[in-house]
């Protein structure tokens, strides 16, 4: 079950969309608040550090368990430190892959989110390349 990450070049051209506030602090939709809030620039909301961020398109289904589906765009940041629990892009023997990073005992592991795939211990053959910090998905055109 291969997962392939395709590089996507991006440009930060500000594009604003009106943001509708749908939630009150309590989490319930509030009809009183459904007027227009500040405009949001989706690109800069997804990518807060353009110079150190890389956009990749995901092919494959092996990360569905982590909520990353075939065709999704992910924003991978090299400016943040990887922590246990992060979804990361890693180079394993030079091959690029996406996995969940988990601490087990005193070692870090790359854990796949699909059955039948082994976890990989993070050693000198593994380089954590970047951290998946955002995801964008289209459901239909």
């Amino acid at each position, binding site marked *: 079950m291969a997962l392939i990450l395709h*590089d996507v*070049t991006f*440009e*930060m*051209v*500000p594009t604003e969309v009106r943001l509708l506030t749908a939630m009150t602090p309590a989490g319930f939709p509030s009809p009183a608040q459904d007027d227009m809030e500040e405009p949001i*620039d989706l690109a*800069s909301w997804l990518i*807060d*550090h*353009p*110079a*150190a961020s890389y956009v990749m398109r995901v092919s494959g289904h092996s990360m569905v368990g982590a909520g990353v589906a075939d065709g999704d765009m992910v924003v991978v940041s*090299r*400016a943040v430190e990887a922590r246990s629990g992060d979804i990361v892009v890693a*180079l394993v023997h*030079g091959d*690029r892959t996406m996995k969940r990073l988990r601490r087990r005992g005193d070692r870090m592991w790359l854990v796949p989110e699909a059955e039948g795939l082994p976890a990989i211990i993070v050693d000198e053959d593994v380089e954590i*390349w970047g951290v998946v910090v955002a995801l964008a998905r289209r459901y239909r055109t």
Partner: protein
Amino acid sequence: MGDPIHLIRDRLDRHGMRVMSSNYTLYGDMQRRVLAAVEDFASEVEIYSIDESFLDLTPFADRDLVAHANAMWDQVRRWTTIPTRVGIGPTKTLAKLANAAAKKNPLFDGVADLREDALRNWVLDRFPVGDVWGVGHATAGKLAALGVSTAGQLRDMPMKQARGIGTVVLERLVAELQGVPASAVEIVEPQRKGMAVPRSFGGYVSDKEAMMGAMAQYAMRAGEKLRSHGLVAGQLTIFFHTNKHKRERPQYGAQRRIRLHPMTADSLELLAAARRGGEPSWRDG
């Protein structure tokens, strides 16, 4: 001693490239990232070619510049995966020479600071004159005939003699090797493709007119720089952003590219273009 200027050369090595496709768009993209990563470490950045820039380090001169360069190296490597080489010197020629030395001699570990006389002389005496920035094949031949084979020997050449051989260009080069900047003159600039006039504001700018005013100043300065080099621009990119180091405050940044047709070095045209690009990108607040 003149302004310490700093040259950085990026090498897109195979390791860095492996995770990317290889095309020119990508090179441009990586160049932008590298420039963003070095922005915090220099007061001015002059793009010399797609993989080389001169950085003005004057405001940092009283610090440990090797540590400064190493921190910059780390930031570029981290954001872009690209390893760089850094050469530091009081003139551009010496910075470029330092950069070549950083490449050749593993002693420097990627960062060569040639501001100190002793080290500089040591490197210059071992540096082939033909490899000095701006010394062409023909000039190198003439120099060899005079027994000048190292950069150190060229530095010690009498000015008059230098002018006799290689016109005023070689004379300037001798001055640069002595640590005297050839005032605002580009010695060799065959591949100059772009330049930047980045600035930080002392305080926060929340007023559109103030920002446009600042932008106008930079456009003027860019025009001046272009004209002083006898160049014209075909494209202008403006960008501004909020203080990235105050993460708790709301963040915004914008970048616009404006095509200039016909190409120009006219400050007023640059100014108009900057306004065209800047105005729609501004957000109040």
